[in-house]
C-alpha cells in the first residue's frame, strides 16, 4: 500500500502527506473503540453494565458522545499559565505517540517508513512525550500539575532503561533494528514466535518489556503521574476540552504503540499463528492489530485490578529489580547467541 502511494504521488509533499495521514485514520477509530472497551470491560469487571443507551447497542456511541462534548467545551487557559508552552504541550505529547506509528509494520506490505533503525526510532520519539508532559506541568502554574510532571519525568526516564534493554535482547537475536526484519525472523507457526521459540530468555524479556511499557504509558499500577486520588489529575489538572482530549488520545495511542511493539518483538508481528494459513498483506494487518488489541486488553484488565504503587516503590522496582534483571538477561541472551553461533 505504501508502494502504491509512492508510485502515484511520489515521495514528495503529497506522497508524504497521504502516508502520514494513514496512521491517523487508524488511531482515531482505534481510540474510540479502545475507550468504549475500557468502559465496558471495567464495568463488567465491577459487576456493572456500563453505558447501555448511547447508540442503542451496548452504548457503542458513548466515546463519540464524549468527544462531541469535549469539542464543544470552552477552551480555558488559566490566567497565570505560561501561554505558549501550555498550548504547545498537548500537541507535543500527541506527536510523540503519533510519530511512533510511522515505524510500526502493520502488514508485510504497509509500513509508514521502512527505516533500518525502526525500533530505535520508536524508542526515541516516545521519549519526546516526557518533554510535552513536563511542559504541561510547568506551564499550568499549578502545584499539583508540577508534582505530576516531575513524577512523570522521573518515571519515564527510569523505565526507558529496562524497556530499551529488553528490546536490545531481541535485536541481538535477530541482528537487525528493522521491525519488518524482526517480524520476518518469526515466520511460520506460533511456536516460532520469540516469546515461545526462544524460551526462556525472550519469555523473561517479554515480561520485563511489558512491565516497563506499562510504566511508560502511565497505566495502572504505574499511573502515579496522574494518580487522581493523590494529585487530582496530575499534569493535566488544568486542561479541559480538546486540549485534555489530546492527552487522552495520546495515552490510548501510546497504549497501542507499546502493545504493537510487544506484538512485533515477541508475538510474530504480522505473522499468522498458523504458518501460511490466513497470511498475506491484509491478514497481516488483521493479525498485528488483533495481537496488539489483546495486549491492550491486558493493560485495561490490570488497570481495574491493581492498586497503585508509591513513587519510591516505583523507582525501586525500576532500578533495583527490572534493570538488573534486564542486564542479566542481556548477558544470558548474548552468551546464548554467541554459543549457538
Amino acid at each position, binding site marked *: 500500500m505504501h508502494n502504491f502511494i509512492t508510485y502515484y504521488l511520489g515521495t514528495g509533499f503529497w506522497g508524504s502527506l497521504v502516508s502520514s495521514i494513514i496512521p491517523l485514520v487508524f488511531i482515531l477509530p482505534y481510540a474510540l473503540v479502545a475507550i468504549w472497551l475500557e468502559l465496558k470491560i471495567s464495568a463488567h469487571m465491577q459487576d456493572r453494565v456500563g453505558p447501555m443507551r448511547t447508540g442503542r447497542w451496548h452504548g457503542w456511541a458513548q466515546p463519540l458522545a464524549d468527544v462531541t462534548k469535549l469539542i464543544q467545551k470552552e477552551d480555558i487557559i488559566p490566567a497565570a499559565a505560561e501561554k505558549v508552552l501550555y498550548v504547545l504541550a498537548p500537541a507535543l505529547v500527541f506527536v510523540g505517540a503519533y510519530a511512533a506509528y510511522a515505524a510500526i509494520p502493520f502488514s508485510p506490505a504497509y509500513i509508514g517508513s521502512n527505516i533500518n533503525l525502526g525500533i530505535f526510532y520508536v524508542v526515541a520519539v516516545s521519549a519526546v512525550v516526557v518533554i510535552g508532559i513536563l511542559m504541561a506541568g510547568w506551564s499550568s502554574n499549578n502545584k499539583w500539575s508540577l508534582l505530576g510532571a516531575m513524577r512523570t519525568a522521573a518515571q519515564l526516564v527510569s523505565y526507558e532503561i529496562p524497556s530499551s534493554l529488553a528490546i536490545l535482547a531481541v535485536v541481538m537475536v535477530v541482528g537487525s533494528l528493522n521491525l519488518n526484519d524482526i517480524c520476518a525472523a518469526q515466520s511460520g507457526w506460533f511456536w516460532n514466535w520469540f516469546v515461545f521459540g526462544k524460551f526462556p530468555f525472550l519469555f523473561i524479556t517479554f515480561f520485563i518489556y511489558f512491565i516497563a511499557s506499562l510504566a511508560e504509558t502511565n497505566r495502572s499500577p504505574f499511573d502515579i503521574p496522574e494518580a487522581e486520588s493523590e*494529585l*487530582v489529575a496530575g499534569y493535566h489538572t488544568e486542561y479541559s476540552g480538546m486540549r485534555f482530549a489530546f492527552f487522552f488520545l495520546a495515552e490510548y495511542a501510546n497504549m497501542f504503540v507499546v502493545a504493537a511493539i510487544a506484538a512485533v518483538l515477541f508475538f510474530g508481528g504480522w505473522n499468522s499463528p498458523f504458518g501460511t494459513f490466513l497470511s498475506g498483506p491484509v491478514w497481516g494487518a488483521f493479525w498485528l492489530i488483533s495481537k496488539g488489541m489483546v495486549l491492550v486488553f491486558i493493560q485495561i484488565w490490570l488497570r481495574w485490578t491493581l492498586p*497503585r504503587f508509591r513513587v519510591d516503590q516505583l523507582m525501586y522496582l525500576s532500578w533495583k529489580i527490572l534493570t538488573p534483571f534486564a542486564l542479566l538477561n542481556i548477558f544470558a541472551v548474548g552468551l546464548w547467541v554467541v554459543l549457538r553461533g
Partner: protein
Amino acid sequence: MAELRTEEMVLNMGPQHPSTHGVLRVELVVDGEVVVDAIPHIGYLHRCFEKHAEALNYQQIVPYCDRMDYLGSMNNDHAYVLGVEKLLNIQVPERVEYIRVIMAEFQRIASHLVSIGTYGLDIGAFTPFLFCFRDREMILDLFEMTCGARLLYNYMWPGGLSHDLPAGFVEKARAFIKHFRPAMKELNDLLSYNEIFVKRTANVGVLPADIAINYGASGPTLRGSGVKWDLRKCEPYSVYNKFDWDIVVGTGEMGTLGDCWDRYMVKVWEIEQSLRIIEQALDTLPEGDVQAAIPKRVRPPVGEVYVRSESPRGELAYYIVSDGSQKPYRVKGRAPSFSNLSLLPEISRGYLIADMIAIIGSVDITLGDVDR
C-alpha cells in the same frame, strides 16, 4: 559542593480534592514530596446541629442526628434515643432494642464498606470500591424495606421505632449474610492481602497506642493500635451484653502495630463480628409491640444525661440537658471523627504525599461528623 538549597512548599489539599473524604482542607507543608507538616482545617460542613437542637422538640432532633455522621445514621439515632429514654426514665420493649441493635450493626457494616471501598480508591484500586458498594446497596435495600429511607432514616424514636420489621425482613437479612461472607473473602483476596496494597499501607502512618489515647482516639483508629476498647463490650449499652462476639484489634502482622494496614484490617474483621451479632439477634428476636412505649409527649424532668455509644467511627456520645420543657436546654455531640482527625498532624509528618492520602483514608473520618 555547597548544600543544595531547597524551599518548602505550601500545598493546599482540599476542600475540593478527590481523596479528603468530603470537604476537609489540609494545609500541607512539603519538601519535595515529603510532608513536613499537615494542618487540618475544618468547618466547611458545619450545620449548627447543637444550636438547632435547642430550638426543636426531642423527637424532632432525631432527623438532625441522622445527618451528623451520614454514613452511620442508625448508630447516631441509637445513641440519642437511648439518652432521651434515660432522661425520661422509660423502659422500652426488648424487641425494640433487638431491632435497634440489628439496624445499628447493619449500619456499621454499611459504613465500614464505604470506608474500605473508598480506601481502596485512595490507594488506586477502583474495582473493590464498586464491590463494596454493591454489597452496601443490599443493606440499604433492607433499610428501605423497613423504613422507606436509604440514607437518613429517622427510624429510631424515643421509646420505640417508626415501623416494626416488615414481613420477610429476617429471611432477606439471612440471605444477605449468606451472600456477604464469600463476598468479603473475595474482597480480601482482591485488596486486603494484595502485595501492592500491603506495601502501600504497612508501616505507614504508625500510631502508637499512647498517642492514640492521649488524643482521645476511639473506634477502629484506636483498636488498630492494639488497644482493646469497644464500648459495646467495655460499657455495654442496649442489649449488646446478650451476644457472643469479640473485640478485634490490630496485630501489626504486615508491618508495625498501629499502621494504616492495621486500622484498615480492623474494619474488615469488625464486619465479621457485626455479622455474628446480627445472626444471634435474628435467632433470638423477641415478640412485642415496637410502639407500645412511645410517649405521647416527651417532656423529661429537669436533669442531664451523658450517653456513650460505639459508632462505626468510635465513641459517639451525647450530653443532653433538660430544663423540664419539651425542648432540650442543650445537646452536645461528642463526635469520634473530630478527635480522630486531630491525630492527623501527629502521624503524617515525614511521609510522602501519597502516604498522606493513605493516612487520611485510614483514620476514616466523615466530615459531617467532624463539623456537625
